[in-house]
């Protein structure tokens, strides 16, 4: 066999008219020749896997994770998310302060900040970025800044600058005035809706200090060729379909990274990345629970586990014409009691996760499960709730609703997602035991999006949320968010929750205590009314090459201290 393979290899070589090159070597190995020591040494290359090319390397028009996975190393925010707690902490800004009335926000930058090309970093870079967002035709980040005083006038070309933004004469302070209070503003403004662009370089291709609204930053060569970086790495090369190569930024304000290079290699899917992790081609990455035990056996890798701000759920459409019982709270509670979430978790994530009882995910600073109903699987209780709601058992073992119709409904999810397919199987079997017949539907993700759009007549669906660090679930639960493409697709409508969501978002008290109290009201209502059957939050399962030191991944960032990563030999 080996001989056959060798012959074939030679044939390929002849066919490509071989003319040199080195025998293949592993891509993820360190290049520095360090002695065995615990003292950090410089050198080496980290290879990370991505499931596609970056579509752009410019944050304003970026909408996909492959793109943000590249630009996050180059364009930073004034603040960042603490990797463990999810709270906002300083980054390029040394300090930040929100006024007592919540209407003014002031950032003070660190001293001597420099872009990788030596240009000083100032508040002008932040203002340039916000101006560019306002005039972009392809960005979806405008809502972040819409409450800044003078935003609309500038966006519509009535002024050549946003009046609510003041950059101090030394460029070290940025003061932002808001027309109304926006509690997540510190993080949202600090992140600049992505990352801050180098204005000196970008001004050469687009200058936003104009009233001509037809000009924008959307299509220019620098979007795929980042000219300067404030992050730990600088852009070196992009090979379409293959990889993006980044080099060390010696001017990085937290100190130059020890690594020489950071390569983002493109793979077809998560399975291919897992394979690359196993073979050593990729230096670090996360795996799905089903692969956890297999990857754990690989000697060259060490593993990490942490909670994530994601969860899976079964959503129930309260406006479903063919399943009117879904508008009834007791029926939805029965559906929660009727499913064994523990068994689902064991089957799908082998216990590597946390059961959730409401929207706020377990790692969030706003998480508080006290007083929430745990809905322990109880078939008798589920049946009793159905009967209290008015359902009557039919001779076929399936309940009849108050209008005489059989309690049969469809639950759909996307094909190819093993976890969701398994949840669907469980739901079909277990809901039959409580007297509800399920008609399962597996379809493409595209079809699922269409079929579960607000206003569409669907019944139940299985999907998940991956949430940001700031707990602001307004767009998911507020009753106003039920238009085409919006996220309250189940028709959830609760004045109490609406009010609490606004308190969490618009204050007037934006303190963590006040926001936590508002979110507690939201979670209690969701737990009681059961518009979703909340299932579980899977753990993050992270693996890294054993030689790689200082790795400390957690919920909100696995690479927060990448400048300290080094290879031990």
């Amino acid at each position: 066999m080996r001989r056959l393979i060798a012959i074939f290899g030679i044939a390929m070589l002849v066919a490509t008219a071989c003319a040199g090159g080195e025998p293949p070597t592993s891509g993820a190995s360190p290049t520095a020749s360090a002695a065995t020591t615990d003292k950090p040494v410089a050198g080496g290359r980290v290879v990370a896997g991505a499931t596609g090319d970056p579509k752009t390397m410019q944050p304003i028009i970026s909408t996909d994770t492959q793109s943000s996975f590249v630009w996050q190393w180059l364009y930073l925010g004034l603040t960042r998310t603490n990797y463990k707690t999810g709270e906002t902490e300083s980054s390029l800004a040394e300090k930040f302060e929100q006024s007592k009335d919540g209407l003014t926000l002031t950032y003070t930058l660190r001293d001597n900040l420099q872009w990788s090309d030596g240009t000083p970093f100032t508040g002008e870079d932040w203002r340039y970025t916000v101006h560019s967002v306002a005039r972009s035709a392809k960005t979806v980040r405008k809502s972040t800044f819409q409450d800044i005083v003078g935003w609309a006038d500038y966006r519509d070309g009535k002024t050549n600058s946003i009046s609510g933004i003041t950059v101090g004469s030394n460029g070290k302070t940025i003061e932002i005035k808001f027309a109304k209070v926006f509690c997540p503003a510190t993080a949202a403004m600090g992140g600049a809706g992505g990352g801050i662009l180098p204005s000196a370089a970008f001004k050469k291709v687009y200058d936003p200090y104009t009233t001509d609204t037809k000009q924008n930053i959307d299509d220019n060569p620098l979007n795929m060729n980042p000219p300067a970086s404030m992050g730990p790495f600088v852009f070196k090369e992009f090979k379409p379909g293959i990889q993006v190569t980044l080099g060390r930024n010696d001017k990085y304000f937290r100190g130059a990274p020890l690594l020489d290079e950071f390569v983002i290699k493109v793979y077809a899917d998560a399975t291919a990345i897992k394979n690359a992790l196993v073979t050593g081609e990729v230096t670090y990455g996360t795996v799905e629970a089903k692969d956890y035990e297999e990857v754990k056996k690989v000697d060259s890798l060490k593993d990490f586990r942490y909670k994530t701000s994601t969860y899976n759920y079964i959503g129930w459409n309260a406006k479903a014409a063919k399943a009117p019982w879904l508008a009834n709270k007791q029926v939805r509670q029965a559906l929660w009691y009727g499913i064994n979430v523990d068994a689902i978790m064991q089957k799908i994530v082998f216990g590597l996760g946390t059961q959730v009882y409401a929207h706020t995910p377990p790692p969030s600073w706003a998480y508080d499960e006290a007083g929430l109903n745990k809905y322990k699987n109880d078939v008798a209780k589920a049946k009793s709730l159905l009967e209290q709601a008015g359902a009557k058992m039919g001779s076929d073992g399936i309940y009849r609703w108050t209008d005489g119709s059989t309690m049969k409904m469809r639950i759909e999810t996307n094909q190819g997602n093993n976890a969701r397919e398994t949840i669907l199987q469980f739901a079909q079997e277990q809901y039959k035991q409580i007297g509800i017949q399920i008609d399962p539907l597996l379809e493409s993700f595209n079809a699922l999006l269409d079929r579960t759009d607000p206003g569409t007549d669907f019944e139940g669906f299985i999907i998940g949320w991956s949430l940001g660090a700031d707990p602001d679930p307004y767009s998911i639960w507020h009753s106003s968010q039920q238009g085409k493409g919006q996220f309250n697709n189940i028709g959830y409508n609760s004045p109490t929750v609406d009010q609490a969501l606004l308190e969490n978002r618009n204050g007037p008290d934006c303190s963590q205590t006040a926001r936590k109290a508002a979110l507690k009201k939201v979670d209690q209502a969701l737990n009681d009314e059961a518009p979703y059957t909340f299932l579980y939050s899977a753990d993050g399962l992270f693996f890294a090459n054993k030689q790689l030191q200082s790795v400390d991944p957690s919920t909100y960032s696995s690479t927060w201290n990448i400048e300290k990563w080094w290879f031990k030999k």
Partner: protein
Amino acid sequence: MGRFIARRLVQAIPTLFGVLLLTFLLSRLSPSDPVKLMLYGNTEVTQEDRAQLYHALGLDKPLPVQFAEWLWQLAHLDFGNSIYYHRPALDLILERVPNSLQLSLLAFVFIVGVGIPLGVIAALRRGRIEDHGIRVFSVVGHAVPEFWLGLIFVLTFAVQNRWFPIGSMNVVGTDCTLCWDRAWHLVGPVLVLSIAGIANLPRILRTEVLEVISQDYVRTARSKGLSEQAVVAVHVLRNALIPVVTSFGTILLLFFSGQLIIERVFNWPGLGRLTFEAAVSKDYPVVQGAIIIASTLLILSYIIRDIAYAWVDPRIKVK
């Protein structure tokens, strides 16, 4: 000959128009749209942002207007900008073509180099173990799906045994085209892409060789005292190859469809993978552009095949 080519090119226009219309309709009428896919899960996006994006991408216009605009662009050789990449779709396609050609050409050479000898051997050793073996291989090779074979190759030879890389074109840090590293990366995709073609050729060739070998002129050639090799190579093979030339069109089709899967399985950055990803994410300009280029190449290959057909068999005159 010139008139023949011109006539065939003119005939290709309605075919291409049909392809354009079908591609456009299938991509637009299938579920979801690029903006929905792009913004799924992005809970900060407002309805205004969403509407603005539809407008900026021209997706808020009626379908007939979108189609007419696209045809007008095409008439100017403009394939439009990719919805996701914000770059000309043609640039994206052209930067992937050389990678796909490497695979296709090598697979073609491999198919011809292995398939033709197997066909001849099967015919010359008719009814013997070699013949049976080749026939079994043909049936199996034809029946086994390429994606499955590719996955098995990756799992067995790349993940478990590490004899080959799990995919891509080069090891990170190596950047060469004519080198061991590239040859090492080519083995898997070329082998899997060739299997169906290699399985196909002996079936056709065996029948043809058996038919030709019983012809009078072959007996005459043998009676002239020519060696068996000369009889097979000059008199039998040249005539038996005529239907094989016809089957090259099918092989090209196999390449186009096979590369969509193989390039994904082997992580090969070619046109197939780009088209697959664009189709999944509904990047209309890229999908449409890739299909037009593939269709044009296919139509051209059929014309070339007809010319080659006449060249191989002078009895056939191009009319």
